């Protein structure tokens, strides 16, 4: 199963902070998963915004990447604490 984590404003948009799903049919990589989630939750392209970073198993991925269906995927809008 794939575990998806939405952070910051993305959790408001997706209406959830986390979800677990099987890799949807025909979805084999990050870019396809982003597109699939965007449609499923009506995100208006928010996951493809250049300010949103993607982590696979807690590591940043900058390019596309194939998925085996057992990853933890995090979508991170601009960060900042303090």
């Amino acid at each position: 199963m794939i575990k998806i984590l939405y952070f910051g404003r993305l959790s408001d948009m997706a209406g959830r902070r986390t979800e677990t799903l099987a890799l949807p049919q025909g979805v084999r990589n990050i870019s396809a998963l982003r597109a699939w989630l965007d449609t499923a939750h009506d995100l208006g392209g928010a996951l493809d915004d250049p300010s949103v970073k993607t982590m696979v198993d807690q590591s940043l991925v900058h390019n596309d990447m194939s998925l085996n269906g057992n990853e933890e995927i995090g979508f991170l809008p601009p960060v900042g604490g303090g």
Partner: protein
Amino acid sequence: MITIRDTPFKPSKELEAFTQANCDAGAITSFLGQVRSEAGKVNALYLEQYPGVTETGIMDAVAKAKARWTLTDVMVIHRVGTMDVGEPIVLVAIAAKHRRPAFLACDYLMDYLKTQAVFWKRQTGKDGSKWIEPRTEDYQDKKRWEIR
């Protein structure tokens, strides 16, 4: 020592313990960030972390500071969850032999925490709730540390 916690902490108590553990350090700098009311516009601040990722990132920044300056000890305490106006958000303390590295490392870590640490902030006030992202100045401050 790096602590990310979802309950309030008392900066004076934490600093006292840090100071006692480093009584031979000569110089101790600290930064305390508190929730500002913005003239009554803010009621609460909510901070979210990515458990694991957030802490690893801070550990990394502390290691970089220790590589760059001669430091005796570093303490970072960062709140997550919901905080009221006036409550502490972050406390960074640096112990060193002399004051220059102690100031620089504290400043450096705060710039990291403001712009690169994996936190998201939501501010709740009389105008409702909104996610807030770093200010342009914060990114400029961070750039000062880049080695050209």
